[in-house]
């Protein structure tokens, strides 16, 4: 393969996984911004999307039906999570929620492991078309589909948050919870909604990526972490999250293609750590130390 086609190939695969990271990041952001909960089970929603679709498809349902049912079931799981685990904790700190969602993620993972085993599973792509050859790079139609879904999700969220009453109320309560409550907004119901939304979107991401990169009981952990990295680096806002998701995907794609595949996860996590640390430094202060002599 020529350099150009290699670059294109890695870029496309990078953008594809980047789109998934972006969606997972949005799931994290929405829940965190509205309810202050760091939901480590977000990755499990992705896993459930893929696994449940495989399961329903295997049981005889058509692909579309299976996917739809899987997304609904995952929504239900997310809502159960909020009702059974998050709500009962009255005075939760971020850490407590983090621990409790890590534990819940464990439970979900264990249940899937017991019922579906350890093998990776696959589902058929949405389009039966063959891969396209562009400038020497092989592009699966599913990859384009994934990026398209990201676009649709972003558009949908944008319209929802800015042009519907419910969406605007949601934004308001993320900025100022007490203020929102004083205006009669039922913030705890919002939290429920956000969990359900995160469940649905996460599952959607899982469904669309599984034809490309398969699924298994344990993909949730890494998916969670990638989404978290992307949210943190993106400053929790939706635009930033999407941008950093795509950037991370691209970076991983190039590193995996041109360097090696083993260190991929370590790279993105390492970047997050470096980013977090660099953020704590006060650069103006450092400049001052070098430039001004205060004797």
């Amino acid at each position: 393969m020529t350099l150009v086609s290699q670059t294109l190939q890695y870029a496309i695969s990078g953008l594809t996984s980047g789109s998934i990271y972006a969606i997972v990041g949005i799931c994290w952001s929405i829940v965190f911004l509205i309810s202050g909960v760091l939901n480590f089970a977000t990755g499990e929603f992705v896993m459930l999307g893929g696994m449940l679709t495989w399961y329903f498809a295997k049981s005889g349902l058509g692909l579309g039906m299976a996917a739809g049912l899987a997304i609904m079931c995952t929504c239900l799981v997310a809502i159960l999570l909020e009702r059974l685990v998050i709500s009962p904790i009255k005075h939760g700190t971020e850490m407590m929620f983090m621990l409790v969602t890590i534990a819940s993620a464990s439970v979900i993972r264990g249940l899937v492991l017991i019922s579906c085993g350890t093998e990776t599973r696959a589902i058929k792509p949405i389009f039966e078309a063959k891969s396209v050859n562009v400038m020497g790079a092989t592009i699966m139609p599913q990859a384009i589909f994934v990026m398209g879904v990201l676009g649709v999700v972003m558009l949908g969220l944008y319209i929802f948050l800015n042009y519907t009453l419910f969406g605007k109320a949601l934004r308001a309560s993320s900025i100022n919870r007490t203020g929102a409550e004083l205006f009669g907004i039922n913030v705890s119901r919002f939290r429920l909604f956000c969990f359900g939304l995160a469940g649905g979107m996460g599952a959607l991401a899982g469904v669309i990526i599984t034809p490309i990169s398969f699924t298994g009981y344990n993909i949730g952990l890494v998916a969670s972490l990638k989404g978290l990295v992307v949210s943190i680096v993106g400053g929790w806002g939706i635009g930033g999250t999407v941008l950093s998701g795509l950037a991370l995907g691209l970076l991983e794609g190039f590193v995996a293609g041109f360097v090696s595949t083993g260190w991929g996860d370590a790279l993105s996590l390492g970047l997050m750590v470096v980013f977090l640390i660099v953020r704590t430094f006060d650069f103006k202060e450092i400049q001052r130390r070098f430039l001004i002599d205060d004797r």
Partner: protein
Amino acid sequence: MTVKVFENRKGFLFFTLLILAGPLVIKSNYIISVMILIAIYGVLSIGMEILMGQAGLFSLAHPTWFGLGAYISGILTVRNMFPPIVSILVAGIIVAIVAYIIGAPILRLKGFYLACATFAIIIIAQVAASQLTDLTGGPEGLVGVPALSVAGFKFKTDLQFYYLSWIFCLACYLFCSNLISSRMGRAIKSFHDSEVASGSVGINVPSYKLQVFVLTSAMASIVGGIFCFYLRFVVPESFGFLLLLELLMMTILGGLEDIRGALIGTISVLWLKEFLNNYLRKVFPSMSSGFDTIFFGILIIVVLIFMPRGLVGWMDRLRNLWEKQFHRTSGEI
């Protein structure tokens, strides 16, 4: 709550006697081997309790120090660079240095962000252990670690490791318990409550945070070395997410506020795990693999919702109720 030191030492002495005299009465090798694991994980729990419960530092990197200690002491011995006991100590020093270098920047992060960054370290370390096959033996692990020998005496039986690990564990407990009730311990607790107030009385908070971080990492590393020589092999899976989950379970169940919680939690969780494994094998022979994660997950959730102060908090509440009752009946108000 004020720690009544004398009372603590009585309990501790009693416990020590039980531990040291135990094998004379209980000869079962199975029980002894479980107790070895309890001692080893106990040191890790103590470290986590100090970090999270006393200092308020949510550092999740403990499994990594444990793993690094195991790997480094194993590698140094397998390559005949040092005799086993020296390898353990050298590994301890190396890990302390690594923790110092990583800790200085990373401890600038607060709360949740520190947890994320240290979580990332676990994954990065695991990936490194799997990828650096020449050094670590890759995913299959480091095998063929020779027996731990000190001046000719070889540690081969479980009973020998029992005493070795428990003496180290009890020593760590004593050290940390002294630390907590000392001036340094108060300083550490103070910045957990209020960093700004702590600085305002002259406490160098970043420096103390780093010291606690390095101390607990060294403890974890040494016990990792003991672990390595006990098993005679080292694999990356032992130092990952599952271990972190178990450690969190032990500290939370035991109670984050008090160092006794660390040991109580470790003993409870590991015996609960054994009980479950044995019971499960009889009832659901095919289900054991996922069950650990489900069980621990549900247990953490239940404890966090209903018993956030853990078993120690529960014990304290019982004791307060008892004292109130006692005072009432003896006519004092």
